[in-house]
């Protein structure tokens, strides 16, 4: 192998093992994707502050479509569905598809890999083993993501100020189909508790919201119907 051989694209730090699996499937079929590239404000306080946002898991640039993978039990996706309806009301030009736990299970069944669904949903001891490449790539991706929030924005963030869609996933029934136990070990946040991870996400979302309220640039956000400027994470050579 030569030194100038093209290195594989770094993998982002997936919040959930099922997302990592879906990314592998998209890679296999040569469908380009980016992971959580955009955040859409969907709720505001009377003061105009963003109090609720939605960050779809994947954006598929060639299809101009967002994909949200929710692995909660069907009976527990009410909040997620409400957020999706709200997003569609506010951003009618944004195409988004919600991929439910059942959809994911059926997808794995189609590939004869239904057993993997159980593996992804297992207990802590069954979490996906770490992969060196994913770990390195994940840390880089996390660093890039954090770097997009300026120190000023980060300073203005208040813990718990903004409710993001990730809170829905963790706050409901811990016995859900792919609960927090299914998170990847290679996640740089793996040593933190789920609550700690949520706080980190809240901080970043709050920083984006603060910037929005101040009329400044909003990291990782897009105007309705114009999902541009996505990073190249996950693209194939």
């Amino acid at each position: 192998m030569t030194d100038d051989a093209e290195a594989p694209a770094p993998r982002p730090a997936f919040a959930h093992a099922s997302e990592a699996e879906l990314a592998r499937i998209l890679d296999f079929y040569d469908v380009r994707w980016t992971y959580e590239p955009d955040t859409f404000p969907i709720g505001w306080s009377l003061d105009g502050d963003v109090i609720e946002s939605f960050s779809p898991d994947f954006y598929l640039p060639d299809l101009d479509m967002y994909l949200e993978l929710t692995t909660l039990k069907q009976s527990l996706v009410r909040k997620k569905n409400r957020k999706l309806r709200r997003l569609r009301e506010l951003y009618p030009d944004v195409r988004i598809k919600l991929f439910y736990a059942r959809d994911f299970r059926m997808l794995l069944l189609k590939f004869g890999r239904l057993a993997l669904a159980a593996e992804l949903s297992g207990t802590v001891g069954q979490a996906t083993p770490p992969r060196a490449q994913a770990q390195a790539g994940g840390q880089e991706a996390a660093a890039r993501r954090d770097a997009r929030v300026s120190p000023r924005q980060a300073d203005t963030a208040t813990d718990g100020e903004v409710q993001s869609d990730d809170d829905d996933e963790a706050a409901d029934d811990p016995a859900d189909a792919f609960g927090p136990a299914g998170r990847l070990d290679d996640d740089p946040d793996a040593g933190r508790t789920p609550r700690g991870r949520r706080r980190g996400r809240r901080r970043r979302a709050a920083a984006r919201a603060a910037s929005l309220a101040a009329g400044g640039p909003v990291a990782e956000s897009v105007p309705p119907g114009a999902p541009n400027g996505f990073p190249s994470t996950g693209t194939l050579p």
Partner: protein
Amino acid sequence: MTRTVDLNADIGEVLLTEEVIAAKTAELGRRISEDYAGRQLTLVSVLKGSLPFMADLMRQIDLPLRIDLMEVSSYGGTATESSGLVRIIKDLSASIAGEDVLLVEDIIDTGLTLNYLIRYLKGKGPASLRICTLLDKPARRLVEIPVDYRGFEIPDQFVVGYGLDYGERYRNLRFVGVLRPEVYGEPQ
């Protein structure tokens, strides 16, 4: 423990009988014959599931035509390693440049495989490329695919038979049926 396969007993419901499939195939054949009259038609089928449909459909098309077969690898990644990229296991045996190509599929669900194949075949310079599928499961769609000829839109259930398999079994059923969930390990 190896489970004994009882082809018919494993079917919870017959979704499409042999007769219904035959009638629809004849209807599609007539439409295709009209639409492609006077043109150079090549049917391209994707192994293995499309084989029975292809065999029946081509005999319902009253035109001189060519057929060709392709096979692509299916996703089989593990949780710990990448499965790489989809591979063409069997490529076309002749050029389709300048030909009117009709891609014949057994079922479209996510659209992932078909999306890849469409891009691949378009790269070979056909005069036109259309899609014909016996079954369409739009509830599963991830990639929107323009379908030109559609046999049946089916509900979001796991179906086998008439070429469709589960673990390489059930392809030889004459009908399309819904596989009992307990067969693939799901509680009913």
